[in-house]
């Protein structure tokens, strides 16, 4: 770890009763970096975030913030949540309904015995940064969802925590607002040079917002990397499947040539792809290809195979074609409406992964 590292989690494990939830997670966050914890529901993202915050009790491993051990099972260190100086934005925002916006944001400063006039000044500055200055005297229930979220962020930032943790920050906004809020939040984090750990279950949200992504699966980190690495070079089937829209087909390895493998699919097709498995010839494997990588063609050719187009669906910015190939339904995207009938699909070998 470089000296730019602000948060280190080392081999953290946590169980509820006899049920292991985190099975040894290690990660780090650098100063000014946004890292997403991505994973399907129940994979332990929230649990990891809460363990870092001190709200859950791990049983092994350690957590260090800016060089200070806040949790270390071996050394018996466990700093209580209120002494960890972290900022957490809750999924539900968790604004105190009996306090005004101003009082919500002022409370952390009040606890730190900051002088009254300084509190007023800092709270107003925090509210102004988030465009909330005119709402200071309102109560949380008088705000929209987006405004509540910003108050919640203001409250988490007002005492300048070294790291800010966000749990599904966009999930309570409606679909349309979510995309705008995503851009706004990324911009805010970058402008204020925050170090942020963001939990999300939405891969496009994770890719858009973060510098690095950690993909959790069943309490372990399946793969981590930049968004382009995660999307373009998945190391396991789970990662490939999770990060994008795919055609997934079952079959058996028919041929192996260095890093490439040919797979005879159960649907009758046969394609070449990048070999990501140790399976030998004759053994079962999966071929995965992103929907946008599959090209529709009117004529036969290299890497093309004949399929039956059954329908086209209009998605607004593009069309989605649905093909029958044996028992599989395959999908591809294009710009025009296409009539049903015989077509060819091109599977570029460098875009197909064989797991």
């Amino acid at each position, binding site marked *: 770890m470089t000296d730019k590292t602000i948060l280190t989690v080392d081999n953290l494990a946590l169980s509820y009763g006899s049920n292991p939830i985190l099975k040894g997670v290690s990660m780090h966050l650098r100063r000014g970096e946004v890292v997403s914890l991505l994973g399907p529901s129940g994979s332990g993202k929230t649990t990891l975030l809460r363990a870092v*915050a*001190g*709200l859950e009790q791990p049983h092994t491993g350690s957590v260090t913030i800016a060089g200070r051990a806040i949790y270390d099972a071996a050394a018996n260190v466990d700093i*209580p*949540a*209120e*002494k*960890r*100086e*972290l*900022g*957490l934005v*809750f*999924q*539900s925002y*968790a*604004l*105190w*309904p*009996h306090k005004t916006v101003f009082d919500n944001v002022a*409370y*952390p400063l009040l*606890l*730190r015995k900051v002088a009254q006039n300084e509190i007023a000044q800092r709270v107003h500055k925090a509210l102004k940064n988030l465009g909330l200055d005119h709402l200071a005297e309102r109560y949380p229930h008088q705000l929209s969802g987006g405004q509540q979220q910003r108050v919640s962020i203001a*409250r*988490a930032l007002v*005492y300048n925590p070294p790291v800010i943790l966000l749990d599904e920050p966009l999930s309570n906004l409606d679909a349309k607002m979510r995309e705008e809020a995503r851009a706004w939040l990324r911009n805010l984090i970058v402008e204020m040079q925050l170090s942020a750990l963001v939990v999300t279950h939405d891969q496009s949200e994770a890719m858009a917002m973060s510098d690095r992504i950690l993909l959790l699966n069943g309490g372990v980190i399946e793969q981590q990397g930049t968004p382009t690495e995660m999307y373009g070079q998945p190391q396991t089937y789970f990662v490939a499947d999770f990060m994008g829209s795919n055609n997934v087909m079952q079959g058996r390895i028919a041929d192996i040539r260095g890093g490439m493998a040919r797979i005879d699919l159960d649907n009758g097709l046969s394609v070449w792809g990048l070999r990501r498995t140790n399976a030998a010839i004759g053994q079962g494997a999966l071929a995965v290809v992103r929907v946008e990588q599959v090209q529709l063609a009117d004529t036969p050719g290299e890497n093309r195979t004949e399929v039956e187009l059954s329908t086209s669906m209009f998605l607004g910015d593009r069309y989605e074609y649905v093909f029958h190939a044996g028992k599989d339904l395959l999908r591809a995207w294009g710009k025009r409406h296409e009539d049903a009938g015989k077509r060819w699909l091109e599977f570029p070998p460098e875009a197909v992964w064989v797991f």
Partner: protein
Amino acid sequence: MLQTLPRRVVVALLALSVFFPIGLVLYQSVLSGPFFMPATTLSLESFVFIFEDPDFWSATKNTFAIAIGMSLIAIPLGAILAFIMVRTDLPGRRWLETPIMIPIFVSPVVLAFGYVVSLGPVGFFSVWFQELFGSVPWNIYSLASIIVIAGLTHVPHVYLYSSSALRNLGSDVEEAARLSGASPFRVARDVSLPMVSPALLYVGVLVFFLGFEIFGLPLVLGDPEGHLVLTTYLYKLTNKLGTPSYHLMAAVATCIIAVTFPLVLLQRALLKTAQRFVAMKGKSARQRPLALGVWRWVAFALILGWLFVTVIVPVSGIALRSVVSSWGQGVKLLDVLTLDHFHAVFEEATMIRAIVNSILIGTLGGALAVGGYLAIGLVTHRKNDGITRFVDYVILTPRAVPGLMAGLAVFWVFLFVPFLAPLRSTLFSVWFAYAVVWLAYGMRLIQSALMQVGPELEEAGRLVGASRARVSRDITVPLIRNGLLGAWLLVFMIFEREYSTGVYLLSPGTEVIGAQIVSLWASGAVDVVAALSLINMALVGIGLAVALRFGVKLHD
């Protein structure tokens, strides 16, 4: 969420308050005489004595008869009432909701007295009935009458739990059954009833349990024909032998606890299953009520009939009796109207003290009790450790001890512990007994208020730097203000209604209306009892009116 030291102090005080009195009862039951006598030794002779007493066995038999009989009456009626109120288009449902709950808030001894003056041999309704039809077909003092009255007055308890189970039952599961072809009746039989059956089972055990510790009704109604139940048997033991027969009373109390304590544990287990069932509820879109057609008027008449018998008859009897000098065949109402009974009450210092004390114990005592319950609630709030589980059981324990015995046990504690002795004849001893007896009730109110607070609101407090104690002070408690106000009002009503707990603590200075009524009833002072009963109901009524005004839910 307090720090460790205050937490330990609260839990230790709680455990002491609960286990010391009960422990004293159990200890006293295996002594050969009252514990303060120097010559007492460990012995089982008290059990031998009561087991050889035929009265004990007839009391046991009657107790079971009442507990089973009233369950058989209250459970079907309460379940039907709940179904009609929650699921059908009965006219005036909203308006009926509060009157239905009244029997819960009227002191049973007052209610029993009401039945005597209304339906007793020379009761108002008996006399009117006789003038109209020539004779009266009922005998209010028979065991059967006691069972029927106990059954009818416990219908609200059943109603309470089954209606909330029915409300929680998502209408989607019923609609799904309708759409797959089931008639409304089949839906009720195949879907609704099985889904609320855990709640019904729970309430069945609850009513049986309440029947086991019933005191006021058999005390008043069972006396003339000598029908004893275990609690009244215990009460009569006081006078039976002349000398303080503490060891015998403790032996009876131990026998009662031996039955009630397992019942309390059973209720706890059943409640957990019932809640697990409820947790499976679907989203309940607004339910379309079942159209009853002409049957709605039959149902309406049935409910009014029940309300007439359980509320109007006894309450109006007391109201009338408190303003007439005498009553009987051929007496004209206008000739006997008087306010003398109230004058008598307000001229006697004891009575005024009883009223003032009752008000004090309800208001101030209620607030103090709620404060204590809140402290216990906070030290266990969101802490799932050994101490919390221990507190859970401690809270449950006093439930198994009927008020009469709890009052006795507290009386002994104040007799036994030297530095507490001066407090025995102060209101503190009564308050302490009340607070312990209603511990489980009060804790349920507090805990359900605390459960309403989203955990993340408290966690957010921790994250921004507040200690557990600060979070309690600045976030948790302010958030449950309304729940605390509601708890205070409900505890006020319960404390006004309470009668048996104060019986053994009654002494100059500690009079409360309920205990005073029990003691005056024994001396036959019907006039004053009537006036006091009315005043008692008025106090409860004021509490109820204020509670409704503030929108306090009378049940969860």
